[in-house]
C-alpha cells in the first residue's frame, strides 16, 4: 500500500522532468513502484537485471528522455562496469533511487554483507551519494535531481529501513 512519501518521491521525479524509469524491485520500493505505475507522465519499463536497465536508460537519454533507475544496493555488484564504461564514460545523468538493505532494522542477515560494501563501492566510483535515513532527508530530493542533470553524472540516493519505517 503506497504511502504519502511514495507519492512525494514520484511527484519530485516528475516535476524534475524524469519521464523514463526502469526498475528491478525491492520490498522497500514496492510502494514507490506502485505509484510509478499509476503515473502516466513517466514511462515505466521494468528490466531483468540492473545493467540491462542502465543500457535502456542510456538509450532513452540519447532519444531525448530523462531516465532514472530504481534498484537495490545489492545490484551495485552487478552494475559497476556499466556505471564506469557507459554512464560515466559517456556522461549520462542518471539518478539511482536505491533501496539500502542491510542497515538497522534489517531482518535478513545476508543483506548486511552488501550493505557493508555499499558506500565503499559508491565512493570508489566517485558517485555523488545521498543517504535518506529520516523522512526529512527527502526534502533534498529535488536538489539532488537537479544536481545530477547539471553535472551529467549518476547519483545514488540510498533509502534505508529507518527512512521507510518512519515515512508517512
Amino acid at each position, binding site marked *: 500500500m503506497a504511502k504519502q512519501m511514495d507519492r512525494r518521491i514520484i511527484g519530485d521525479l516528475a516535476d524534475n522532468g524524469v519521464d*523514463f524509469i526502469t526498475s528491478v524491485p525491492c520490498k522497500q520500493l514496492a510502494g514507490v513502484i506502485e505509484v510509478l505505475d499509476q503515473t502516466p507522465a513517466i514511462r515505466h519499463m521494468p528490466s*531483468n537485471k540492473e545493467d540491462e536497465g*542502465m543500457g535502456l*536508460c542510456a*538509450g*532513452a537519454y*540519447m*532519444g531525448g528522455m530523462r*531516465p532514472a533507475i530504481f534498484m537495490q544496493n545489492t545490484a551495485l555488484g552487478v552494475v559497476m562496469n556499466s556505471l564506469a564504461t557507459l554512464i560515466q564514460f*559517456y556522461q549520462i545523468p542518471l539518478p539511482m533511487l536505491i533501496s539500502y538493505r542491510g542497515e538497522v532494522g534489517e531482518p535478513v542477515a545476508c543483506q548486511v554483507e552488501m550493505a557493508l560494501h555499499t558506500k565503499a563501492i559508491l565512493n570508489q566510483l566517485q558517485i555523488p551519494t545521498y543517504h535518506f535515513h529520516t523522512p526529512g532527508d527527502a526534502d533534498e530530493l529535488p536538489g539532488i535531481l537537479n544536481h545530477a542533470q547539471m553535472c551529467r553524472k549518476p547519483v545514488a540516493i540510498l533509502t534505508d529501513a529507518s527512512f521507510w519505517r518512519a515515512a508517512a
Partner: protein
Amino acid sequence: MIRHDVLKTLIPVISDQMVVCNIGAPSQELFSLDDQPTNFYMLGTMGLASSIGFGLATAQAKPVIAIDGDGSILTNMATLATIANNPRSNFTLLIIDNGSYGSTGDQPTYAGARTSLAAVARACGCESVVEVSAKDTAGAVSAALQADEMTVIVSKCDSGNVPAPVIGMNPITIRERFMAAVAG
C-alpha cells in the same frame, strides 16, 4: 562471408539510419567502413547494444537498428524479454551470429553449437524473428525498415575479423553528435 562482409553489404541500407553498434570489432569495422554521426559506437560495456538501441527506439520515433553479436546477446539474453514485452515498431535488432567471440580471438560461443538465438527470441515473445544467411542480411534489414513491425534478425555468418584500428574518438563527442543526429 564474415561480419565485415555483412557490414559492407549493409552500408547502403543503414548509412543514414540510427545505428547502435556493439563493442569491439563490430564498432571498429563499422567505423572504418562508414563513419557517420548516425552511428553510436560502444567503446565498452559488453552486452548492452540491444538494450541501448531499444531504449532509444522507445524514446523517439525514428527507426533504430541495434547491431549486436551472438556472444553479447548471450551475456544479456534477458533483454530479449524486455524487448518482446514492450514492442516498438521502429526497432530492428540485428544479431550478427558468427558463433564466436570475435573481438577476443574467435573463441566459440554456445550460439554456434546447440543454442538457437532465433528460438530464444521467439520464446521470449518476439513476434517477427527471421534467421537469414549472411548474403541475405542486407535484404532482411531493408525489409525490416519498411515493415511497420519490430523485427529481430539473426544473421548466420562465418567467424573472423578484419583488422581495424581502435576508435580514438572521445565518447562525449560520439554521444553528442549522435544525439544531434537523433534530434535533427
